[in-house]
């Protein structure tokens, strides 16, 4: 993996070029990873994703907590070089990165035994030893993988828990560093330590002690416990600790921060020097029936961050979810139709929402890169913050009481009516 900084600006963060594979495309940071569940872009088949969201090669963010049951099949699939992990999930030509935790769902707390890292999967809690973890990485053969770590901390964590997460991570990583030669994938050094500067420094120190070339980048975790918890982070608490970490990291390695951060938080983190994010925020919005409508194009109109699909006022609103959006959903469908799909619990509802939300979010990141290049991130931040209104808009996502779950997936109105 090759990473080169193009520019660093005091107020706009950094612009970089990332080449994950020699034969692969050169990607630009700040970069958006495509969050997946069970290996698929949530709700979208590969042809829908490629026809209606993005034709460009993406970096798929796979998570062991939603794919661990595929380890045996992947070991067989990858025998003798094989076709690769992205091919297996129906998305050939895309790069990939393997993480432990699903940023879309809240990771349960606890279960941190001395030598075992809990992995919360659909089937319950699995126990990962460093040995087992490295075996799975060898089976999956991702382009990039994260180091095994205990990231079970957030703003409320007691000092003792934070210290434990650092100690346990260090222990796991001893094994990972020693055995990393057994896998070809690029390793990301995990940085944990909650909101504690001392613990963070210790975690960074352990990574920086490793011989040169031990890892290709950093993954910063332990600020939130995934799911909606990342959408409501308090910037005044988050940014100082991130700043504390970033200034101790090697500059020529990319910094990845997974989680469903609000758009404003993303911009603030980019200014701090974080390079790589993911689309879990777009997922969380779709899951809770919100179309992203925040504006990142300079104009004088007032904008709202979301369109609430569950709101009865759009029952007969035949306008597109968002004006001036070129996505399939906005070109061919109406707010009224999305509302109907929500009311009838139809699967096409989240599909159309996800198409729009991903399209919107990917365009947002294109705008971010332009703004960073022109050193205009503060202006963009101001727009995203207030949306041309007099006060700061609220980007947090509340749980919708009626979400598409597996239990309701198959039942239409009929079941509810009878």
């Amino acid at each position, binding site marked *: 993996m090759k990473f080169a900084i193009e520019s660093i600006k005091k107020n706009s963060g950094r612009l970089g070029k990332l080449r994950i594979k020699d034969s692969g495309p050169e990607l630009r940071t700040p970069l958006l990873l495509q969050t997946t*569940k*069970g*290996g*698929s*872009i*949530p*709700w*979208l*088949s*590969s*042809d*829908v994703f490629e*026809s*209606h969201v993005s034709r460009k090669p993406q970096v798929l963010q796979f998570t062991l907590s939603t*794919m661990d*049951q*595929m380890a*045996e*099949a992947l070991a*067989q*699939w990858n025998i003798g070089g094989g076709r690769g992990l992205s091919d*297996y*999930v*129906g*998305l*050939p030509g895309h790069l990939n990165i393997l993480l432990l935790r699903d940023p879309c769902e809240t990771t349960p707390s606890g279960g941190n035994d001395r030598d075992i890292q809990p992995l919360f999967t*659909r089937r319950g809690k699995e126990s990962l030893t460093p040995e087992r973890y490295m075996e799975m990485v060898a089976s999956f053969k991702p382009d990039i993988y994260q180091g095994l770590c205990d990231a079970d901390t957030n703003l409320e964590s007691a000092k003792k828990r934070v210290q434990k997460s650092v100690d346990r991570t260090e222990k796991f990583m001893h094994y990972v560093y020693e055995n990393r030669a057994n896998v070809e994938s690029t390793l990301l050094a995990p940085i944990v330590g909650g909101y504690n500067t001392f613990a963070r420094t210790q975690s960074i120190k352990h990574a920086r002690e490793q011989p040169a070339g031990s890892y290709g980048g950093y993954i910063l975790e332990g600020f939130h416990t995934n799911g909606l918890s990342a959408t409501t982070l308090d910037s005044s608490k988050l940014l100082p600790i991130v700043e504390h970490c970033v200034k101790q990291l090697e500059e020529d390695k990319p910094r990845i921060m997974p989680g469903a951060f609000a758009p404003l938080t993303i911009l603030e983190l980019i200014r701090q020097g974080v390079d790589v994010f993911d689309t879990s925020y777009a997922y969380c919005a779709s899951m809770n029936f919100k179309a992203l409508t925040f504006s990142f194009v300079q104009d004088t109109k007032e904008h709202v961050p979301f369109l609430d699909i569950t709101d009865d006022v759009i*029952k*007969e609103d*035949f306008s597109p979810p968002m004006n001036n959006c070129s996505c*399939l959903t906005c070109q*061919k*469908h*109406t707010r*009224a*139709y999305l509302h*109907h*799909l929500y*009311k*009838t619990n*139809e*699967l*096409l509802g*989240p*599909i*159309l929402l996800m198409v729009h939300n991903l399209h919107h979010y990917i365009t947002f990141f294109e705008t971010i890169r332009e703004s960073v290049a022109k050193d205009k991130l503060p202006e963009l931040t101001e727009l995203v913050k207030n949306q041309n209104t007099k006060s700061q808009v609220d980007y947090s996502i509340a749980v919708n009481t009626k979400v*598409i779950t*597996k239990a309701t*997936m*198959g*039942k*239409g*109105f*009929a*079941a509810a*009516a*009878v």
Partner: protein
Amino acid sequence: IPPLTYKVVAECSVSKARAGLMTLRHSEVNTPVFMPVGTQGTLKGILPDQLIELNCQILLGNTYHLGLRPGIDTLKKAGGLHKFMGWPRAILTDSGGFQMVSLLQLAEIDEHGVNFRSPFDNSQCMLTPEHSIQIQNAIGADIMMQLDDVVKTTTTGPRVEEAMERTIRWVDRCIEAHARDDDQSLFPIVQGGLDVPLRQRCVSALMERQVRGFAVGGLSGGESKHDFWRMVDVCTGYLPRDKPRYLMGVGFAADLVVCVALGIDMFDCVFPTRTARFGCALVDSGQLNLKQPKYKLDMEPIDQKCHCSTCKRYTRSYLHHIATNESVSCSLLSIHNIAYQLRLMGSMRQAIQRDEFPQFVKDFMAKHFKTDPIPAWIREALAAVNIQLPADPEKEDQDLEKKTKAEKRQETENVAEEQVATS
């Protein structure tokens, strides 16, 4: 130009099978055709663009569901269902009566219409033939169905005759109420239970009405397969050659092949999309339940020969892992299953046009049943239209036959369940 024209393009020189071209306001439709069911203004997890990619020409919508949600006012304001759901091609709607009777336990039928309690506020409501047509006029489907008097296929005695006679009286009320005859075509429904003379009488009465096509109703609801094919055969025997014939609620592959041989042009069934939700993929030999452990390490596509977007990209192994877990699996399997149904119909059309349909039927049955004996009703039905299937390769083992019978019974029960659970 009338809103529906139909012409027979080719006829099988042996059986009653025919290939036709039906031209509707929104699409041309090559028959025989399978119509996927998009109950509530959407086909389970599939984009309209994807359906067009699959060369789907006509969809079915359910009047009962659409009348409740989004409701007639909204559909009218949207300019009809085509615009509301963003589907540019043809749509057919049912009358709403069948679903009402099957979904709402308290529905009762009298001469005025179907009485039911509103699922929202429990108030007493009535769906009359006129009301059904008004709703269907608002939906704006290319083809609509009359409200018919539905009785269980297993019902016997005078109630069956009453239902048949009432269905004929109701078609006149429907024709009278139909306000958009220049855009939409109303099909009457042949009723008459499992009684040959009643079916005959119904067909001849309906043929006196000015209609552009016919539906065959009241079948595929738990009757024996023997009765089923005979009723289809009787109806197609009397229906006019120059109008399309629609057999309601039939969609298993073997049934489709038999009923095309008997002269049916149009079919619908929720089965392909419903079975997809449970992780099942349709193939010539039946269906693969991808949840089974044997597919865990199977790196083949569902079907090597299938050109659908699912088979192009996904292995059985990956689908095994995500089936019923990730909702995208529902879309992926629905795409394949609809592609399968549409391809099957396309192959039949081609075979009819080349006048090779009897051979197609023989090849299909051999692939479909493999070493299992071909059910007697299929042999009889096909023999009735001069297609003689070769004898089963091995002497039928008694246990095997018993097992097959049990399976078939199960299948029939499933169909009945499908009908009730259409949603």
